[in-house]
């Protein structure tokens, strides 16, 4: 049993499911392109010290289809709508990967509403010298080597419960993949840059940037780009962790989160 409970909240873009658990200061966690489950260890780790709200982004979980959400600004404002609908003011804002990109945009668009920000291997920047692999072309068996410090263990985490010989399972997998990565593509395809670099200077929050040292999807050199763009920000590198640092080292991430609060 997870300590996270699934609830829903109404927004102008329909009913949004979210996971809630723990107690303490309110914290909003925004998941990455791979999605989120109530069993994710990062949620448990964060809820030990915080009251965690983790909304499903459009296209993930049991969200409605939102074809009218098309671009970065749409998603940024939608996620603010969710925060408001949850009745929160200035929660600790935490985002992983694509969720980190959205969190950074939220903080840049409304700098006075975010005083604490944690970006975990966020997307959103592009360096020509360090091109990010095209995750949309990767076949399932190719993903672990980019996502995990230890691909072998990572592969087992990813395929737990998969029944690839069952056509119904495969169809459900394809539908979920199309919904999730279809949405993610609106922010990340074909190059995950929607102009965030030119807006980072607006962020006023106390910011911590967390990166797995073995991240082969968005390499740690990108931490420097965020650090340079956000005044006063700090980088925490986590050893023996890849892009899925939230799966591989959830406690180290939670510790970094605690440092902004």
């Amino acid at each position, binding site marked *: 049993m997870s300590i996270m409970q699934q609830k829903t909240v109404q927004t102008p873009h329909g009913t949004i499911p979210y996971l809630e658990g723990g107690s303490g200061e309110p914290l909003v966690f925004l998941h990455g392109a791979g999605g989120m489950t109530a069993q994710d260890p990062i949620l448990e780790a964060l809820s030990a010290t915080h009251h965690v709200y983790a909304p499903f982004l459009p296209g993930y979980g049991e969200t409605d*289809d939102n074809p009218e959400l098309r671009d970065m600004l749409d998603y940024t404002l939608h996620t603010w709508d969710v925060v408001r609908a949850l009745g929160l003011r200035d929660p600790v804002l935490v985002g992983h990967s694509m969720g980190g990109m959205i969190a950074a945009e939220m903080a840049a668009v409304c700098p006075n509403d975010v005083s604490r920000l944690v970006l975990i291997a966020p997307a959103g920047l592009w360096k020509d010298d360090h091109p990010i692999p095209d995750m*949309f*072309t990767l076949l399932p068996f190719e993903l672990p080597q980019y996502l995990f410090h230890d691909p072998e263990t990572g592969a087992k985490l990813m395929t737990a419960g998969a029944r690839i010989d069952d056509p119904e399972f495969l*169809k459900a997998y394809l*539908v979920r993949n199309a919904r*999730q990565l279809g*949405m993610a*593509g*609106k922010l990340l395809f*074909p190059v995950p840059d929607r102009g965030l670099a030119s807006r980072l200077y607006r962020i006023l929050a106390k910011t911590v940037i967390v990166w797995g040292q073995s991240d082969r999807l968005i390499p740690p050199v990108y931490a420097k780009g965020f650090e340079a763009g956000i005044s006063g920000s700090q980088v925490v590198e986590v050893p023996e962790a890849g892009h899925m640092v939230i799966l591989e080292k959830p406690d180290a991430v939670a510790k970094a989160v605690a440092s902004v609060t």
Partner: protein
Amino acid sequence: MKFTWFNLMPWPYLPDDFREKNRSVWVDIDQKLFDPVKAHEVYNTYMDLLEYADTLGFDGIGVNEHHQNGYGIMPSPNIIAAGLARRTKNAALVVLGNSIALYNPPVRVAEEFAMLDCISGGRLVAGFPVGTSMDTNYCYGQIPALTREKYAEAHELIIRAWTEREPFAFNGHYNKLRHVNIWPRPIQQPHPPVHIPGGGSIETYDFCIDNTYSYSYLSFTGYIRAKALLQGYWDQVAKRNAPDTSPYRAGFAQTICVAETDEEAERLYSEHVNYFYNRCLHVYPGFADAPGYRTIKTIQTGALSQYAPPRGGFGQLTWKDLTEGGHVIAGSPETVRQRMEDMIKGLHVGNIFCLMHVGNMPAEKCMYSSKLFAEKVMPKLKTLMPEWEHDERFWCHPVDRQARPGSLPAPYAPARATETA
């Protein structure tokens, strides 16, 4: 029946070990394999072959659009069609087509197609594909989940640009234009006939039915495997109460090789067919369908797996597999006639896109096969659908008097002033 001689324009110099040494013929194909000087010959030969098909009496000659693709070196079919418009006389120019979500703004397509229609004297058949995921998403960077919305907007804009007679403003999500007023506009009224190449997306069926466009299934897997897909289309035609079931509502692409005998066909063409299926269709699976490119509705039908390449890929298929499986219709004129008749009746299709140039087939063999088809097969198939003979909705309507290139008069000669020195 309408027979269109189609050339994908494959690069004919992919090495023997292409499959082993390269992950994909498409998107990230090795630059070193392209030789621009050889391409000079290749393009001119391919255009000559399309013109030759016109002289053989094919109803249409067909071109299409692919990008960064070793089996289709035609990123701009309009350039080829422009050349063909000048040097052909009778055949429809079937441009299948322009991927309209890729053009900014899409009025460019309305303009270029209008130019082609004017230059060719109303011989244009216009194709509007959504485009494959390889072309549209991976090569041209369109966001997969927005591609269909962008396509639908481009379609609306083009049709309005073709048909409205006053300048208008267009305020779309992807195109903001204050003064749409294309000049020239097409000869054919209200606009050239439209064919929509599709590959199993059920939304495309409805789009064709609702707009009286022809649905074209351009696969390389042949007519036997196409039955399920086209049956799906015809079921939808019935379900939506379309006014008729004209076979011209559908088109189908088929690889065809004709020789004097079945044995000669295998001897002459098997290496070129093998080149096509083994090297040209070697596409990295990660490029096949960008997530979000297919609609959820289409995935939920579970139909896509039926159209996927065979397990293990095409490379393992022998001549026998390919001909018996219907991927390729090959043999003597009588063998080909029988199988074509099965295909036409079985799929109920009126527009046939004849893939007569295959892989690295040299011009002389292609001409031999095309001539035999035109002389000994096509005449026997022409009248297979007599009850629909007068359905003109899906084909072009050329003007009666076609201008001829090279028909300039003698240049103006001023009267000689004889008194000057």
